[in-house]
């Protein structure tokens, strides 16, 4: 059994069927990609995993536990982290504070301890600050550490957002188009980070991306959605040769 197990997930909004009885498993430690045309239900899938949407039917198991009805914050504390397609940072906070927030579930200081800021609370802050600085180094965003993220350019915000998810030290990392709005050099950087995270921390990664080069190169497995239905699942090679996938999504020439 995989670390994440989706069974018959169906999601409806009024008449719209965003997910139509989708089932698949994600294995621990793999890079798993979700692809499909616009409006296929990829983001909705991530929303179901991170708890923002509740599937109308079907179930989601994480590390063997049924999390279908859990609230998002509960899932985060179990080790599911997420970066969003449309940037969802805290615009008035600095990069540093955004990342510190990523560590929320790993910290303990409560209201009173925080307010009086006595020994333990202070030590905890410092200890986690160190962790966050590592992420900052890793993503090479040292120079914008204290800038409010709201004023950063699109691409930099995307990077900070990935960093925030990383700071949580998750078991499974959900990335929704992390490379949108980047040029190929920046994409290479991002790809390198993703590989590093994956290798160094053995984090399971679910990736949504429209750049087929990235997807095919990085993924261990790929699932393809179209109109909410799973129309393909397999290794990159298998997907590239799947005629349904080619027709619905890749187009002839992207199929190498």
């Amino acid at each position: 059994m995989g670390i994440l197990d989706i069974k018959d997930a169906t999601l409806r909004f009024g008449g719209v069927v965003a997910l139509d009885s989708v089932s698949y498993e994600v294995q621990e430690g793999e890079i798993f990609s979700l692809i499909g045309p616009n409006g296929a239900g990829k983001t909705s899938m991530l929303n179901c995993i991170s708890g923002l949407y509740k599937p109308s039917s079907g179930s989601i198991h994480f590390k063997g536990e049924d999390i279908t009805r859990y609230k998002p914050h509960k899932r985060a504390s179990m080790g599911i982290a997420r970066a969003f397609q449309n940037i969802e940072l805290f615009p008035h906070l600095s990069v540093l504070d955004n990342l510190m927030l990523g560590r929320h579930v790993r910290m303990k200081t409560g209201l009173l301890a925080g307010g009086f800021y006595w020994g333990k609370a202070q030590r905890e802050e410092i200890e986690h600050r160190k962790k966050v600085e590592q992420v900052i180094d890793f993503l090479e965003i040292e120079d914008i550490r204290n800038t409010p993220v709201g004023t950063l350019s699109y691409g930099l915000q995307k990077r900070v957002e990935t960093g925030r998810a990383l700071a949580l030290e998750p078991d499974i990392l959900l990335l929704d188009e992390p490379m949108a709005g980047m040029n190929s050099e920046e994409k290479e950087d991002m790809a390198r980070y993703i590989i590093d995270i994956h290798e160094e921390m053995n984090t399971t990664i679910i990736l949504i991306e429209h750049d087929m080069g990235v997807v095919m190169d990085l993924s261990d497995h790929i699932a393809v959605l179209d109109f909410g239905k799973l129309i393909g699942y397999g290794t990159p090679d298998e997907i590239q040769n799947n005629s349904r996938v080619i027709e619905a999504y890749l187009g002839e020439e992207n199929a190498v």
Partner: protein
Amino acid sequence: MTFFLQMLVTGIVVGSVYALVALGFVLIYKSSDAINFAQGEFLLIGTYVCLTLITAYNIPFIAALLMALMFSAVLGFAIERIVLRPFIGEPVISMIMATIGLSSVLAGIVHIIWGHETRVFPRIFSEQPVKLGEIVIAPVYLWSLLIVVAMLIIFTLFFKYSKLGIAMRATADDQQAAMSMGISVKMIFAVAWAIAAIVSAVGGILLGNINGVNASLSAIGLKVLPVAILGGLDSIPGAIIGGLIIGILESLTGGYLDPLVGGGLKEVMPFVILVFILMFKPYGLFGKKEIERV
């Protein structure tokens, strides 16, 4: 039964006055996502102008009414130009606060010009109550019901189909994006405030006929806020149905519950029910949901 019907009808007609005032809130919210705390003062100024035209210049009511409405429109425009323009693109909360400041400025001006004694409209609506079977209604309330229904139709059509109406909704949604469509946010604000001022003046003039005019009339502004919220801050039908509901609730509470607890619940009950309803409909009865898509 007659008692119940009388309570119901009283609620409906009083509610229609609330609805009219609440409409002012909705119009401004619809174009700028802000709440106008100066609504009560708008109402007051429009009313005073109309009154002054009638009493000091002996202008017939209808003419005075039209002139007062025109004045209100100009006032709305002027306020946009002088006070609100710098708030375009600023957080909504600053604009809300500015309207609190504005209410103080307008109240001061009213005080300087009209002083503080209660003034009375010359009889415009007949005093003779209208009788529906055993139920009696004061004519001024019937008028307000009529006006409210007319406004409901006009504004619903306006926002749904007219170019300006769509542009107003777009502006409330995202000011910067609206600008990038070539929508003049300034113009939208000016028009919205002018219309809101006009609607308030109509409400004020009706109210002035009920209880006379003095500075404390402006308190109706805050009193009616729950009405706007209940209906959904950006919904025209919401304001009207909200007004009627709160009117009826007040009246029925006054009729049936107050005698049990020794009075006073009439003013509180609408709030209790309001919160209760909001728990099920967090954006009021017809308000637009905040869209959270990630």
